[in-house]
């Protein structure tokens, strides 16, 4: 369903993606792991068309997202939900308004239906009591939960999670993972999760891909990745300082 073909991207002459190719099947959740600064978030932003590559393609159901313009690009993006690293909640809106925002802007729903959907979303992430608060009044974990509710409120077919648990304590991390798993059970979306939570993240994904030096090194099930003999994969999984991965 999502196919990344030979994707290249450089910033100021520095190559971040060097021919990334990857395929994610419909209804599958893939964990994208790798060193910080090696292009995982950049790859996610290409998949939704927020960044344009130097060359290469991202096909969503055989449609190249970079060939789409205007209404067709809008239509394609409506199929996505994106959980940003910092939540990306709108500062000037309350929690309720943040979640209602895409519904108000992109659907013809009445206020009563919007309220019902928002309260359902807030209930799912256990944030009903924070409906009237502003993002600035929330902790990091609470922001992530609200952002998750906002990303899911349009019932997306494809969910992209950019480090959904970075900077959170272990209990909140488990809570976010459980929320992602529960929402997957409900919506059966196709998902990509950029994460450093190893091995916790393996519990909620079908496959894992390791991105290193701008290329996908190995793709496999969590069990295959954990027992991989590939020196880069085994170094990354074990967290060893010595090995083929250059530490900056």
């Amino acid at each position, binding site marked *: 369903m999502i196919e990344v073909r030979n994707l290249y991207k450089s910033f100021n002459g520095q190559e971040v993606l060097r021919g990334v190719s990857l395929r994610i099947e419909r209804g599958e959740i893939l964990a994208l792991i790798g060193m910080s600064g090696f292009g995982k978030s950049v790859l996610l932003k290409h998949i939704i068309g*927020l960044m344009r590559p130097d060359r290469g393609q991202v096909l969503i159901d055989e449609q190249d997202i970079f060939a789409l313009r205007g209404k067709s690009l*809008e239509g394609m993006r409506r199929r996505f939900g*994106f959980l*940003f690293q*910092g939540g*990306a*909640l709108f*500062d000037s809106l309350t929690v309720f308004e943040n979640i209602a925002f895409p519904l108000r*802007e992109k659907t013809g729903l009445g206020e009563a239906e919007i309220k019902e959907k928002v309260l359902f979303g807030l209930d799912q992430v256990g944030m009903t009591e924070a409906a009237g608060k502003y993002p600035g009044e929330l902790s990091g974990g609470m922001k992530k939960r609200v952002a998750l509710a906002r990303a899911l409120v349009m019932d997306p077919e494809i969910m992209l999670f950019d480090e959904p648990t970075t900077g959170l304590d272990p209990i909140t991390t488990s809570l976010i993972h459980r929320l992602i798993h529960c929402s997957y059970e409900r919506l059966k979306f196709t998902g990509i999760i950029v994460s450093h939570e190893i091995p916790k993240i393996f519990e909620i994904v079908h496959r894992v891909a390791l991105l290193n030096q701008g290329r996908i090194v190995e793709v496999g099930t969590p069990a295959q990745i954990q027992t991989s003999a590939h020196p880069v994969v085994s170094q990354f999984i074990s967290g060893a300082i010595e090995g083929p991965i250059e530490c900056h």
Partner: protein
Amino acid sequence: MTLSLLEGMGRMVAFLGITLFWALVPPFRVGQVIRRMRFIGVKSTLIILLTGAFTGMALGLQLFYTLRRFGAESMLGPVIALSLLRELGPVLSALMVTGRAGSALAAEIGIMRLTEQIDALEAMALNPYRYLIAPNLIAGIVAFPLLASIFNVVGIYGGYVVGVKMLGLGPGVYWGEMQNLVRMKDILDGLYKSLSFGVIVTWVCSYKGFFTGYGAEGVGKATTEAVVLSSVLILAWDYFLTTLMV
């Protein structure tokens, strides 16, 4: 160097073109425009009242004694009014709003860029030019002439207080000569200037915020550049318009 300067200018012009396009395409975001008018206009009223009053009073004082040398104190009213309506009102009010609202606009959009709020808009299939930038431009076009009008009225009353109440000029002379010599064209020329300054400030400040650099330093730099460039453009564009209007 020249090439990158040209590229930057081209990007700025393209940014304005895209924003104008989305400002003219319905559905119009009236609520957002009103919120931005409050941010740019209403919240700048106090500073406009203060600067307008003191500018008018200083003008009254300076011009009264200057005109008295030529025995032309009776011209105080029209000279103050013409100075404010055609030149000082639009320019000074625009510079004050640049300092107050333009800098905040650049910083706000810059922070939205850094915290991925603009990316979030795009990810939700919402066009940031339409939802974020165009309302600022429309609000600037409406708010700047209104603020300049407030500046002018308060300034003219400031001149009245000094010239008539403090220095003893007859009120009939102050207002009468003003009515005789100020034409509607003088008022309209000033308002056209303000309108164009509204475009310049919201355009430059939105652009600088939209393409901010990384981190707090990037936002700080974008804000400074927004204020400096807006101010220089206001003065340069004012000279250009004045040569067309005189």
